[in-house]
């Protein structure tokens, strides 16, 4: 199945991707550009939330409190490291 199977998978993936891009683009043209909160509010008929002022890096921005984000990410990183070291130790045995 290697060659044909792989090609078949890629064909299905490409077809789905194409359909999604077309449908998504059409929906975007209907609704117009708006932030995610505004998009939700608009969809259900609620008054739009006031958008956060710009910022972030190249349009990328953080949702929520940045300090808490970093703190939680560091804690998760420590947990990952501990879990990984435990795994390595068990694998070595």
């Amino acid at each position, binding site marked *: *199945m*290697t060659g044909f*199977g*792989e090609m*078949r*998978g*890629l064909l*299905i*993936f490409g077809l*789905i*991707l194409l359909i*999604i*891009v077309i*449908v*998504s*683009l*059409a*929906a*975007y043209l*209907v*609704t117009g*550009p*708006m*932030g*995610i*909160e*505004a*998009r*939700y*509010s*608009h*969809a*259900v*008929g*609620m008054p739009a*939330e006031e958008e*956060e002022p710009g910022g*972030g890096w*190249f*349009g*990328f*921005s*953080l*949702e*929520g*409190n940045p300090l*808490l*984000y970093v703190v*939680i*990410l560091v804690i*998760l*990183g420590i*947990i*990952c490291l501990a*879990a*990984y070291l*435990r*795994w390595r130790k*068990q*694998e070595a045995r």
Partner: protein
Amino acid sequence: MIYDCQPDIGGVPVAHIHLPDGSFTLTWVLVWWFWALVLVGAALLLARRTKQIDPGKITIAAFVTAASFAIFQVQIPIAGGVHMNLTPLIGILAGPVLGALVVFIVNILSAAIGHGGWGLVGANVLVNFSEVLAAYITYRGLKRVTSSLFSRAGIATFAGLFVGNIAMMGIILISGIQGVTQTTSQILVGLSLLAAVNMGVAVIEAIITGLMVEYIGRVRPEILDGDRG
């Protein structure tokens, strides 16, 4: 019953269902929280039944939790602002049992930093779990169709996020929104357009998930083998 409390942490009162706290009545908030807790309880019971959980699985669950939390909070400047959550990757790598616990933790942590109201955590856990489960089933089901890990993971991502959008629409339509004058059919049309735009980001997420799974399959294929979760 009117339930109205806006979270004041971080000033962004939205969740994965990007609506402010108070959009659902307290009854529906409690209903979705109840089912989310039932789901987490069932996942804990199933996990406990496994005599010895493979430390490898625990490590993978920890890594996908960190990755999902990290990316979940980042708004990407596409179509006015969208974000990814990597739930299909959680389903593929951790499986549905550990996946249920992972999405619960990610939603709790997200609410804790002010990304999303606490009232919508229950509903969002159910939405995210539907993505995990659909991606897991699709990924495994495609094994007989194609040998390409990239395609399997990519298609599983599309399936997961599609099911997640359906679940999101279903939960909103069942719960109803407080204080709006739109009819159910108007809300359905609005949510359908929203879901269609949301699916646009699924393309990026599918490619990223596909590449990650293909890479893992090359360097550590045992992670993708067997019945996980």
